[in-house]
């Protein structure tokens, strides 16, 4: 089965954020980057299907030069090849433009299955997979929390619905799935994989946009939010902080 996985490189969710307020974005030079968490799960889902049914996994990422790091990591985990859609100011693109640029690449590839993470941990639009399905005219299954692909001709997926509800759906490929985090345990890249990845191709392409959008959005400003609440910081050693909390909330005998 030929599977494409779209991955995004995002600012590390644990690292500090330094803002470039004027540019409406991060000071990238001071930022650590990593693979978006949901995309790691999408990649693992793709690799697991390939391990079972054969075929290949193609990873695609849109972004500046630094994006090669996450593509190389995906290749080390076992993806066969990578396409880097090179765009220096990718964070300024409308979600629709991102999907158009990915669709332009994937349309040529003849994939049967496209997997995307549900949403990114940076801008968090959560739109790429659904827009990609529209660009390609393929059906979409969104927020997939379990996946069964026993043959190349049928995809069975459990969609996550509101408030703990779920639903199984079935459809024939080609289709786009957006993958929820927690669906699997992403594998680590071993030394052998890392060495092999050096020989695997990363194709660089320019983004192509279909155009025709009537309007588009852009970030004008980025800022740290004002705290809505007056937060009282309880300081001191753990025992002191604990004692303050017990006294303040009158926690003794609350039950």
């Amino acid at each position: 089965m030929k599977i494409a996985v779209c991955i995004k490189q995002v600012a590390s969710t644990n690292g500090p954020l330094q803002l470039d307020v004027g540019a409406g974005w991060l000071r990238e030079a001071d930022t650590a980057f990593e693979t978006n968490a949901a995309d790691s799960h999408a990649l693992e889902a793709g690799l697991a299907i390939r391990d079972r049914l054969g075929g290949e996994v193609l990873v695609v990422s849109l972004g500046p030069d630094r994006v090669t790091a996450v593509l190389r990591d995906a290749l080390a985990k076992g993806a066969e090849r990578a396409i880097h859609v090179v765009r220096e100011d990718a964070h300024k693109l409308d979600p629709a433009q991102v999907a158009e640029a990915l669709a332009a690449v994937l349309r040529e590839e003849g994939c049967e299955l496209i997997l995307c993470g549900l949403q990114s941990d940076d801008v968090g639009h959560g739109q790429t997979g659904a827009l990609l399905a529209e660009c390609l005219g393929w059906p979409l299954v969104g927020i997939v929390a379990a996946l069964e692909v026993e043959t190349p001709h049928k995809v069975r997926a459990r969609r996550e619905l509101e408030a703990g509800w779920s639903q199984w759906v079935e459809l024939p490929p080609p289709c786009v799935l957006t993958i929820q985090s927690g669906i699997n345990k992403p594998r680590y890249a071993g030394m052998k994989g890392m060495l092999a990845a050096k020989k695997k191709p990363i194709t660089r392409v320019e983004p192509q946009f279909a155009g025709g959008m009537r309007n588009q959005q852009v970030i004008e400003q980025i800022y740290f939010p004002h705290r809505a609440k007056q937060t009282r910081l309880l300081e001191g050693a753990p025992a002191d902080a604990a004692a303050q909390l017990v006294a303040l909330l009158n926690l003794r005998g609350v039950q």
Partner: protein
Amino acid sequence: MSDMHGTLVIVERAAEGVSRHSLEVVAFAQALGDPVRVLFPGIPDQSTADLLQAMHVEALLTCPELEPCDVYDDDAYVEAIVRCIASLNPLHVLLPHSYTARDHAPRLAARLKVTLVSDCIAIEHDEKGFFYTRQLFQGRTHARVRVAGEGPVLVTLQAGIGRAESVARGAVAAPLTPCAIELVARAARVSAEAPFRESARNVDLTRARILVAVGRGIKSAENIALAQRLADLLGAELAASRAVCDEGWLPIERQVGSSGQTVAPALYIALGISGAVQHLVGMKGADTIVAINKDASAPIFDVADYAIVGDLFEVVPALIQALENT
């Protein structure tokens, strides 16, 4: 086609007629100031019609082409709603940022050739026009977003954006007007089974007065016992972030957040929870929030009344000792 004007709210069906989140969006739309039209994706039953017709709105629209709706076909839904939006020609189309809207709102936008501002927390207006506030980096920063160009702007709104109880009521019942569209019948591309609930839900976190909630900072299944001891001393229930349930350290029925339960206890004690948006929407309504976390920049502190920046493996034992020494 009518002149481009006003706000169109597309409500979502639910067991109770219309989802609570949809009603929050209606209340928010009314406060925005432009005339509000509400579109119900189907034909409402009598009690739902009563609920809708009590609202103060410019028009109430239905979409008979989406009946019967026993099996949700998102292709048919997208096709029908796109035609409704095109014929109604609103300035803004507002939807709840629900699980189903995450699937179909981008597709509506793509077919209308317009942008979608998703998971928005505020819409305001200044001399340059409308601007939209979104949370970036899982709530650690906010962004002000502008839309340039023509055509309606689609916006999905985060849960808690308005109060369902404060939907303004109209003096007279608005008539239900079917939206005149033609839908070309097409075979469904996806075959769907009946929705089900994974767990029996024998834990109802919404009834707990006190919740002790654990996040990834708890580090392992073995350490849950520490949180359980604190919960027992307080007569509290244990709750968890998604990460903890994904790891299998606590069952999914104890999950609080957008994919779990929404709670509003008297006291919520968050242990090692960073406070991603998806978690905060499920608990920010608690009366008192205590956050204990090593990382002083964790977003959980933004909603906390009391903050202890420290290692939970030092603070929680100290808390247990303080409670036991009474």
